[in-house]
């Protein structure tokens, strides 16, 4: 099975070309990260008190990863690979060393030349950070040694037993998540009256204390030791035994559990985290709508923000006393009806001319229409009606009898958004399994054949557009009531793109995937204007979004939580192989039957 029976390579029997290739990429990535300014900016965020900041973490993960990559052997069927040994560690070490060398050169460069004009971050601050304020000799030593060490460690990951690897993974990732989620855990422990817990883990000025970091790492590492994979075994056993009916029941139970958590949790959370959750919800609602258009019907809509804007402006016009032209000051419920009508109209209006386009053409035309809508709101022509660049302000909250939903109370906004999200999830789920959902699927697969098979493609596609538009407009309506004002600049093209990234990274067509995607991207990195959990990332959000998108496209194009269908689609060979191995006998029997 494992092709490792050959003796390990000799220590200096290296593929130097490969090592130099990956080593230079390692060095370039580190220099790039430094010059982009990530370390200097993120140095403020302490992960482990006085030992590690997020800024340094961004430099040191690079040699680790490249050490891992360079010593990874290509496994080909039928070809024996030499046993991993010290030679592989050496390749990792040299790669890391080259990475460190890159940083040394950068330091020398900053010390001797002034390139601040084109490169903003070519400055003493970065220099101080890299040299630890101890002179260039000390800094070089540290980076070269740590490069070697981390590169070796990365290479060594291949040679550990899977249990040790798992222990390390649990400890590092657990600690990382704990450190990153500091605000939430602080907030939550306050709500649960467990302040002593967070006081114990975290330092007062931020960051996990060294002692608790060690204790937590050890505890986390013990988890796989104790369980020894039993949990995973149980889960797979449980999964393989269940009937399709049970599966559906289980997913309903799971959804109910998640719903209960989201219903109860906000009571134990403070304002900031609730605000964050409300933002996540708003974008989740948008992403669910776009998921119908892109994921189910396969229409790449890049102007989705237009419907978000229509929802926001309609609510503003109907509820705000400051609306310049028509101001009935109705209740939110009534304005919501108007929102549905307006979104449907907008969906039809934008949809009708563009719906006959296919693929890339559709994407470009919708991109244009998205901008047109924003420019209309901004225009002088509509200024007497919609306020132009001043927008419409003073939008009241949502009066729900005993409760009032307003921006100052993020918890109420969160519940409001949650209700709409549940509605959106229900709509997506029901439509997916209906006649219309099947028609969308067929159109996504092959539009001309779908038409020949009797599907009215124009109507079906318009329907997808309209359903998506209505969901997006709900999000816009809640946003207007939350923020209390709408401006054209809140509806930039960036919103469309970020929602699309959420859908792609989460998993196109997958409701759970979209939920995970918006929680991770919007919750942690932040939306186009809304800060996420890692507020320090504000300036680098787009860089990280882009890098993440490229990485996902290369390594996991089906998304974080894909649907079974999409996985099958993108991994057809594996599926066919499994199917072939799986029903080997039945096929043979059938062949025999055919011959008779």
């Amino acid at each position, binding site marked *: 099975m494992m092709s490792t029976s050959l003796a390990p390579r000799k220590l200096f029997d290296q593929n130097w070309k490969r090592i130099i290739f990956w080593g230079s990429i390692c060095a370039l990535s580190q220099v790039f990260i430094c010059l982009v300014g990530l370390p200097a900016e993120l140095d403020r965020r302490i992960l482990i008190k006085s030992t590690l900041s997020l800024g340094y973490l961004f430099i040191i993960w690079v040699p680790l990863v490249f050490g891992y990559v360079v010593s990874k052997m290509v496994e080909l069927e039928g070809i024996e690979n030499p046993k991993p040994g010290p030679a592989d560690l050496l390749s990792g070490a040299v790669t890391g060393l080259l990475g460190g060398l890159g940083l040394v050169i950068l330091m020398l460069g900053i010390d001797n030349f002034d390139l601040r004009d084109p490169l903003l971050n070519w400055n003493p601050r970065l220099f101080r950070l890299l040299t630890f304020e101890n002179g260039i000799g000390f800094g070089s030593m540290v980076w070269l040694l740590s490069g070697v060490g981390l590169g070796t460690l990365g290479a060594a990951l291949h040679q550990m037993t899977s249990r040790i690897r798992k222990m390390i993974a649990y400890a590092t990732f657990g600690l990382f998540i704990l450190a990153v989620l500091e605000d939430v855990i602080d907030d939550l422990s306050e709500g649960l009256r467990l302040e002593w817990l967070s006081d114990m883990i975290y330092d007062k000025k931020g960051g996990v204390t060294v002692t608790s970091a060690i204790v937590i790492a050890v505890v986390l590492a013990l988890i796989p030791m104790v369980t020894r994979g039993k949990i995973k075994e149980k889960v797979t056993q449980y999964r393989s035994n269940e009937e399709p009916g049970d599966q559906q029941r289980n997913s309903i139970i799971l959804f109910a559990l998640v719903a209960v958590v989201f219903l109860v949790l906000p009571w134990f959370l403070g304002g900031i985290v609730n605000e964050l959750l409300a933002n996540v919800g708003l974008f989740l609602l948008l992403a669910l709508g776009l998921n119908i258009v892109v994921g189910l019907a396969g229409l790449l809509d890049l102007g989705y923000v237009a419907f978000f804007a229509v929802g926001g402006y309609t609510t503003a016009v109907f509820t705000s006393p400051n609306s310049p032209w028509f101001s009935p000051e109705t209740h939110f419920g009534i304005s919501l009806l108007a929102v549905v009508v307006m979104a449907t109209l907008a969906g039809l209006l934008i949809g009708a001319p563009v719906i006959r386009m296919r693929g890339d053409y559709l994407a470009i035309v919708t991109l244009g229409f998205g901008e047109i809508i924003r420019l209309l709101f901004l225009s002088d022509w509509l200024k007497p009606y919609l306020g132009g660049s001043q927008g419409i302000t003073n939008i009241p909250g949502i009066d729900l009898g005993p409760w009032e939903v307003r921006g100052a109370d993020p918890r109420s906004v969160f519940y409001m958004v949650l209700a709409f999200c549940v509605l959106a999830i229900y709509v997506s789920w029901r439509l997916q399994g209906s*006649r219309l959902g099947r028609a969308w699927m067929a159109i996504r697969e092959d539009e001309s*054949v779908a038409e020949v098979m009797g599907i009215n493609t124009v109507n079906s596609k318009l329907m997808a557009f309209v359903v998506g538009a209505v969901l997006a407009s709900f999000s816009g309506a809640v946003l207007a009531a939350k923020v209390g004002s709408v401006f054209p600049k809140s509806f930039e093209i960036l919103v469309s793109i970020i929602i699309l990234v959420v859908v792609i990274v989460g998993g196109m067509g997958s409701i759970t995937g979209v939920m995970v995607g918006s929680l991770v991207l919007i919750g942690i990195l932040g939306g186009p204007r809304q800060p996420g959990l890692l507020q320090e990332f504000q300036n680098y959000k787009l860089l990280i979004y882009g890098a993440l998108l490229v990485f996902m496209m290369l390594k996991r194009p089906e998304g974080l939580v894909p649907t079974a269908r999409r996985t099958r689609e993108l991994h057809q060979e594996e599926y066919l192989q499994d199917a072939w191995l799986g029903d080997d006998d039945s096929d043979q029997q059938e062949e025999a039957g*055919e011959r008779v």
Partner: protein
Amino acid sequence: MSLLEIKNLQITFGGLDALSNLDFAIEEGEIVSVIGPNGAGKTTFFNAISGMISPTSGEIIFDGESVLGLDPNQITEMGIARTFQNVRLFPNMTVLENVMVSQHCRTSQLVVGALFQTKAFKKEEREIRERAEEILSFFGTRLVGYRLDQPAFALSYANRRRLEIARAMATQPRLLLLDEPVAGMNPIETAELTTLIGRLRDEWGFTIVIIEHDMKVVRDVSDRVVVLDHGVPIAQGSYDAVSTNPDVIEAYLGRPVEAKS
């Protein structure tokens, strides 16, 4: 009145006449074969009937009504269904879904029914499913059982051809256009499909037009044969009459070398 009447049909791509002066009629309950060498315009003829391309001039009348200018889905709704020469299933949909989706034009539920799970919606979904299973069981055990939930791309080549026919059957057509249904099948599968084509007419009441290169199949199934060459009909009639027609032999094999005078 004939089920399908083609009058003086002409299709031109640029300067090339893909079809010209095509005139013929298909009676209800007939099985008509269209044969001809490669590039004779057979598939273009199917594309014109199913609305995928519009003819340059001429008239196509189905059941007394012109189909010119209609969208492909409207034509399917009138009762014409087709399969494709290069199998064009919905590869990532399951076998069952492929057949369910093509009942689209015979069903009507939209968003509201799905959202509120109305009685009518549930009834229609059940009927669509039952009908799909009934159609698939027409092909024996090959497309039912565990295959129902397999994606179409996982099927063998012959099964994909069968599924394409099943999908066309699900649109509840009166006229079924089969484009090379046995291409790529082995002799046993071919013989079996030949009987199935006969049963499609006898049991399901379809009128069938079939494009085929396999002359054995053409001989066994067709009531009438139409021969096209370079877009022009050169002969029609019974298989025996057509197969001995010198023009047809010439189109397929070329002119015999004549002695120089």
